[in-house]
């Protein structure tokens, strides 16, 4: 028996780590991974709530989040590759022109 709040706090920690990563990391890919971490944190809370409310819908939402994450990863990484081709750097602090 584990209180639901533990799961939620774990999910919150993961999310917070993701946000922090987004804020402090400089590598574009790492930043992108931080986003994935945030999504994972959210997924955990979805599953936890699904267990609490005995509603499978929560798990369904996880699938949708995963699909969106996959799509996002595909497009995002393609963008990263395109950015790298033109700017030859992955440092976000140097990618600040809002255009390629």
């Amino acid at each position, binding site marked *: 028996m584990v209180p639901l709040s533990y799961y939620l706090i774990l999910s919150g920690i993961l999310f917070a780590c993701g*946000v922090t990563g*987004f*804020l*402090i990391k*400089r590598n574009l890919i790492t*930043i992108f991974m931080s986003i994935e971490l945030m999504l994972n944190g959210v997924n955990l809370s979805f599953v936890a709530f699904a267990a609490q409310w005995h509603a499978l819908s929560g798990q369904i939402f996880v699938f949708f989040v995963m699909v969106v994450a996959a799509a996002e990863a595909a497009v995002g990484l393609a963008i990263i590759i395109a950015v790298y081709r033109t700017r030859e750097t992955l440092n*976000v*602090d140097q*990618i*600040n*022109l*809002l255009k390629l």
Partner: protein
Amino acid sequence: MTPNLHLWLIPLLPLAGAAINGFLGKRSSRQAVSTVALVFSGAAFAMALWVVSQFSSLTLPYIETLAPWIRAGAFQVDFAFYLDQLSLIMLLVVTGVGFLIHIYSVGYMWEEGGFYRFFTYLNLFMFFMLTLILASNYLLMFIGWEGVGLASYLLIGFYFLRDSAASAGKKAFIVNRIGDFGFLIALFLLIKHFGSLNYAELAHVISPLHIETHAGLFTAIGILLMVGAAGKSAQIPLYVWLPDAMEGPTPVSALIHAATMVTAGVYMVSRSHVIFDRAPSAMTVVAIIGTLTAFFAATIGITQTDIKKVLAYSTVSQLGYMFLGCGVGAFSAGIFHLMTHAFFKGLLFLAAGSVIHAVGGEQDMRKMGGLRTKIPWTFWTMTAGTFAIAGIPPLAGFFSKDEILWQASRVSLIYWGVGVFTAFLTSFYMFRQWFITFFGEYRGEAHDSHEHGGHGHDSHGDDHGHGHGGVHESPALMLGPLVVLAILSVVGGWVGIGNRFENFLAPVFHSTATISADSFDAPAVSTESTSPESLSPASKSEESGKNTELLFTAISVGAGVLGFLLAWQLYYRRPELPTEIAAKLGGFYYTVLNKYYVDEIYAAVIVKPLIAFSSAVLWQGIDRGIIDATLDGSAEGAREVSDSMRHMQSGNIRSYAGWVAAGAACIIVFMAWMAVGTR
């Protein structure tokens, strides 16, 4: 059992045609474009015929509700179609004549640019016109009403590279707006006082009301409706756009500005007969406007030299007749004239188009003449039309015009007198046109040198467009509709023999007769005498009226014949006379020639002050001084604020993320605070 008619298909078919041509037509061949246009308008006609075949098994009025549209409390407007005898006749006229003119247009427009555009607009027009006549409420009718205005604008300005065409289109649009304004206010009044715009509901609500108690309201609504009708149907004082509308291609003039759209006003007034029956003053206004328009337009028509302008003024004049009919309560006579007019005026325009086509784009009658032998088909069809409009029995125009005049005479002999005189004028200017165009010597200069070549073209040159030398008959594609319409112009009036037409329409205007009989007599007499139920009490007056009617008929036929004789005398036997007469009349002649300077008066009295006011107060004062100044000021302020704020926009993604995180934190703190606060 009432079969499902699928009325919605009828307007939607031309719309589909318009959509296909509009989206794909640019890259399609002319054959494909014309096939699409003809198939869809033909299908609409076929549907209409099918509806006729089903008509006897219908319980009328047949109402087909497609979808709810506006639901606001008790007020409710649906997308619904309404079919009764009146809309059936309109449906047949619009789809039938429309289809014929589509066929004609394929031949007429073949050489023109923007072929697909033309048919897109034409089909679009059909869609809106059919919506207008099949609508089951005033709002849907108003959609069609505005839509035909749009189509009309687009088609008048079809040759938009020509400045005159573009401004004619604008003129038509703007003048129509004035009428629509009246129409809209009438609708608002209806909504306010009766809470509905459906014909059926309105009839139900209005029928028990007594004229004494609501006369003012009904008069107001009636006159406002008449303003709308005057705009659309080119009545005084809003008729000025129609002659200019002749800038459009001739089939357009035939379809929109003669046969169908301009008659929408008559249709609308007839459709509103419940209201007009209770507004005698409004009826009088309608009748007077109709009479005046008929007369003045006819006088202008006498002096015109442009073949299409003559027909345009003739249209205005004939529309005046229809309004006269409606104004004296003879709605079915008005509709009857509407139908026959659609036949012969459509025919006349198409024939005029054929003439123009034949002489290579020339529209001035003075440069024609002697065309009788060169374009015999056109000549004979045009002849049928001319005789029909002149009211020579037994052609179509005779029956309908005579019916209107007879009904008018029962209200006031003044209407009748002016009407007969107008009939004389009509006959005169139509035969004048006929003689100038087809008799005498050919006066076109441009083609004289090509005369011998022109004959060569005659034998095989059907597919030659205008602008080519030589007078030549139009292709069969154009002549076919001419012949059909000519036959209709000859026999179309026979349906009115023995009041059959009126009896057919009687159920529509029936409520008029029974209700107004006890409260109001004058405009109701006509329908009363024709409706079968009330035949027996009125049979006595019928008996005595028979002789009078014959006398009046004789007089109006006489007027027509007189017109013919005068034209024959002036333009066939002694062609030099008209110039002398014109010289003698001097100023008056020029006044008429310049259309009584109405355009100029409008320009001076309305347009110029309006422009002056707009530019001085609205433009410089309000727009520049207040609106623009406010806008510029706020833009300036925004720029200054942005200048200071843009340092936040460093372009650094992580800074943005920082702002987002800080904002999210603020929201969380706020929510937590709220949550704690509520505990």
